[in-house]
Structures are given as structure tokens and as C-alpha cells.
């Protein structure tokens, strides 16, 4: 353990400390962080995580938080359990699980998701499309105002998670991307 810790830079340790401070002040109970090969889990209160790990919303800087390896679907915490007529405000229950090494591109606002620039046009991206930070991956429309969503990160789209012309919420996963 001490060997791994000594391989962390000053900057890494400062970043970790900042994250711990944020967790302290936040309403969240736990945080999972990957710094290089080191995965750190920080929690308070109950030992079992109560909230699904936080994905970084678009636009993204170089990510310091990764979606963890294969979170099993049935680990969904009680507060997010979907009854048959009740829908929670979270990633839809049918959303596929993140693979190791992928990053979620989430919606920066609530609105109607459009996969292409206009009806009949080809989609901005599909599975396999290579993108960089500024590539527009979708439009989200709010009250007739169209907002371009950037990929935020260089990499390859591995999954399209939102449906064209459907309402998406703030923080909803739109795409999954494998960073370059």
C-alpha cells in the first residue's frame, strides 16, 4: 500500500484531498476515484455505497473519475428501485451497464435529444465514430433553443444511449465513449 501511495504525485494527493473535502461537504455518501492504476473508494456513514457512482457530465476535462468496472445491475440501491408505474430521476433502468474503461457523456441540461442536425440528416455520431473534445455529438433542445453537446473528450463512441426526439434529463447518459 505504501509503495502505491508513494507513487502518487503531489498533484494527485492534492486532487484526492480536494475530492475528500467535496465529499464531506456534499450530500453524497461515497465516492470512487481512479488515479492512474489506483482506485480509491472514500465513504462516510454506511460501508455499503448508497448511490451509484457519479459520472462526469459533459463537457469533460481530462477525466479524474472513471465509471467503475462492471457495476452489476442488481446492485441498484433501494432508493432507485423502479416500481412498475414509478420512474426515478436517474439513468433509465434499461440503460446498459458501463464497461471498464468507458466514460459516460451525459446531458448538460434537460430537453429534447436530437441525434442529427435536422430531420433526414445523418446522425452526428454512431458507434465507432472517433471524436475529439469539440465534436458535436448531439443537440438538446429547450424551448426552441438548440444546444450543441460536445464530446468533451477524445475517443471513440462505443454506445448510443439516448433516443432521437426523446426527453432527456440533466445528467442522463447520452453516449458512452472509450477515451483515446
Amino acid at each position, binding site marked *: 500500500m505504501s509503495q502505491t501511495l508513494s507513487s502518487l504525485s503531489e498533484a494527485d494527493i492534492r486532487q484526492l484531498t480536494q475530492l475528500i473535502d467535496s465529499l464531506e*461537504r456534499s*450530500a453524497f455518501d461515497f465516492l470512487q476515484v481512479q488515479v492512474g492504476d489506483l482506485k480509491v473508494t472514500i465513504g462516510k456513514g454506511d460501508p455499503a455505497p448508497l448511490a451509484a457512482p457519479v459520472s462526469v457530465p459533459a463537457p469533460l476535462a481530462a477525466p479524474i473519475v472513471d465509471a467503475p468496472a462492471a457495476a452489476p445491475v442488481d446492485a441498484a440501491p433501494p*432508493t*432507485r428501485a423502479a416500481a412498475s408505474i*414509478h420512474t*426515478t*430521476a*436517474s439513468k433509465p433502468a434499461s440503460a446498459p451497464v458501463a464497461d471498464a474503461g468507458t466514460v459516460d457523456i451525459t446531458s448538460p441540461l*434537460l430537453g429534447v435529444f436530437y441525434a442529427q442536425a435536422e430531420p433526414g440528416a445523418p446522425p452526428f455520431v454512431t458507434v465507432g465514430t472517433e471524436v475529439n473534445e469539440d465534436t458535436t455529438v448531439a443537440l438538446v433542445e429547450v424551448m426552441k433553443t438548440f444546444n450543441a453537446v460536445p464530446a468533451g473528450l477524445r475517443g471513440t463512441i462505443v454506445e448510443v444511449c439516448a433516443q432521437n426526439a426523446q426527453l432527456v434529463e*440533466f445528467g442522463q447518459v447520452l453516449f458512452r465513449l472509450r477515451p483515446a
Partner: protein
Amino acid sequence: MTLSRVLIANRGEIAVRLIRACQDLGLATVVAVSDADRDSLPARLADRAVCIGPARSSDSYLNPKAIVAAALGTHCDAVHPGYGFLAESPLLADACTATGLTFVGPRAEHLYSMGNKIEARRLAHSLGVPTLPGSDKVQSAAEAMDVAARVGFPVMIKAAAGGGGRGMKVITRAEDLPQAIVSASAEAGAAFGDATLYLEHYVANARHIEVQVLGDGAGRVIHLGERDCSLQRRHQKLIEEAPAPGISAALRERIHAAAVKLVSHMNYLSAGTVEFLFDGDANEFYFLEMNTRIQVEHPVTEMLTGVDLVAEQLRIAGGEGLRFSQHDIGFHGHVVECRLTAEQPEHDFRPNAGKITQWDPPAGPHIRLDTHCYAGYSVPIFYDSLLAKLIVQGVNRPDALARASRALRRFRVGGVGTNAAFAAFVLDSPEFSEGKLNTRLAETLIARFVRQEGTAQMGADRI
């Protein structure tokens, strides 16, 4: 009832309240939540919750476009804005109307007219409703000095676009007025986007008495009695009660009549509250402002009259006329409400956030609790500190106060500090129990409470 699905554009205890009222009327509910409220009680109670933005209010609860988009995207036909946030926003009301959504509240024209406090004062005055000696807009320090000379010091500087206790300054000395006008104007501009100010004579021995009204926009208007909300710290109410103690039947009737006159003239739609200042020394009342929304303290009136005000708002919004005439409204006993907040008076009311580890509220006949909290809930840092409203009914005022005090002392909250002990202290105080109320009483009692707590602490430390 033309509504079928309502978008609840609020959070916390009022969101719970609105959802329950919709459920009682068989209406489907969608609650708009911020990222910080995804796992809140309203999110669990509503048929659906949609996340409209990050925790910060300006990007979520104060974002009319996100709210309207959420309502349209989830096939709602109405939006209920609750209180605070965008409840009195003409922008939200207009955006709803423009997109075919019903705004559960007053017409936009009344949000505009009553939202401008100078215009509201002018309308009241024109109808013969008493207003405080004061001014219309003051454009300069010189004009302010003229007004002050006419009405006499002390004066209260108020922001025309303010209200709800915000944007007010009391000036006692003439030499302080010019500088105060300059800073008040700048503050008003920054806080409300409108630097316009007006002046009123300041009443030292003031009580805050407000009248609940309902209108159906088809000419029918009723009042549901008054509430006394004099127990305020820095213009924020802590305790409210009905009926207002210690005023004559004749005065009570005049206050009710004044409120009804104003809202009849407006052909007012939905719920509202007309606020008055009662000068205890002059035994006179004066119009202050009108709140064009359901208010935090609405349960006081609900328990006193048996009328579900939120349900009536929904019915009226759904095209039904007012179901009651004035003589249908009865008043039973005495009701008092205490706002339980995550603030500790002994630490200057500093708010604290964190996980509620214990939540054991009082219960029983005549006790109502409006809350979004529960054991295990983490109080977020981003919003106001209201945890719950404890509303208690008694056969008379002493009975109501005693029950409420006992209920507060039984209310066990762990993990977050609250004002429960202070609220009980207020109810038990000689001034409050004798009905010797004014808007400065809270400060006196806070000082006394903090001293008492300090002495107790010192005693405990010595052991």
C-alpha cells in the same frame, strides 16, 4: 376538472404538499428535481421525477425554460410553482400560457402588478385601503429627504421589486438617509434587477397581520381569515398563528374587508395573501403588499377552516368556480405553526447541513407535520434550511400554545441542529403567551434564549 397531470416545480416540504394535493384529486404528478434532490421524498412520492439541472437553483428551480420543457416533455397540462423560486415569476406564467400549460396560480397580469410594490400600494390607496404614509418612487436622495420630512423619521426604504422581507432598510437619522438611498438602490438593482425604491414611515410597535384569500377569476372572491406572523427574525417568519390575538372584532372585520376589496377589484384568480401592518400604538392597520402565491404558512388557515387551499388552487386552475361562499367558511379554535429549521439560534442561526440520523416527530390529534425529511435524509447545502412545519390546533390560544410547546419538546432530531428548543422557548415566554406581539419581539427572545443557553452550558461545563 380539466387537468390530468401536474408538473411540480419546487422541492422540499412544499413539493410533498403539492404532490399529495394532486393525488387527493386524482391528478398524476411529475416533480422537477435538481441533481441534489434526485433521491428526495418528493421524487419518491411523485409518479415520475425528472432532473432539470444541477444543484444550484439558478440552473434548476429558477430556470423557467427547463421547467416548461420538463412539463411539456412529460405530457403535463399544468405547472404548480409552490412558493419561493418562480412562484411569482411572470416569465414562468407567460411561458406556461404560451405553450398551452396551465399555471396553477394567479394570472400573469397580477404577478406583474402586485410584484411591483409601488403599484400595489397605489392600487390599495386608490381603493381606500389604508396605506402607510410614504411615497411612490424616489429618484434621488433629495427626494427621499423630502418624503422623510413629510412622513417623519424613522423611515423604511423598500425596493419596489423586493418583497418577502427582502430589500428593506430602516433609517432613524436624517444624516444617514442619502448614503442609505445610494446603497439600497445598488443592492436592489443587484438582487432584483430593478433599483427602484420607495419610502414608508417606519412603525416601531408593529404587528404583521395577513389575510388569506381565494378567487376564481369569475368574480367570486372570499377571505379565509387572518394570520398573525409577527414573530420574525430579520423579516423571516418563525411562528405564525390564527386568529390574530388581541384585536377587536370590529378591527378584524375591517382588515378582512380591506383585503376582499382589493382582490375583488382585481377579479383575482387562485390563492393569495394580503399583508398588513398593524400599528399597536395607533390601533390602525395599513396595507403593505400582496403575495400572489400559496404561502409557507398556509396550513395554519387550512387547520383553522378545514379548507384545503392547495386543492382549491388546483380546482380553480382546472376551470371550476369557487366552491364556497363567504358564509361557508368557519373558524375553529386556534392554530399555531412553528417552522422547524436547520438553524441554531445559539450560533447566530447559522444553518447546518448533513445527514439526519434521528427523526422522531410528535404526532397525535390536532398535530400536523408538513415535511420532506426522514431519518437517513441528507439535508443538502444548496437550499433554504426549512426542515418541517409543525402546525397545532387547540380549542383556544393557551391550549394551542401549550400543545405546540409540548409537541416541540417531544420532537427529537439528531444529526442536524435545529431551532426547536428556541421555538418552544418563544411559545412559553410571557410576552408571547400574553399576546404582546410585535415584529421586534423575536430579537428580544433570541437574546434571552442565547443568554439562558450560555448559562446552562457554563453550568454544565463546571460539573
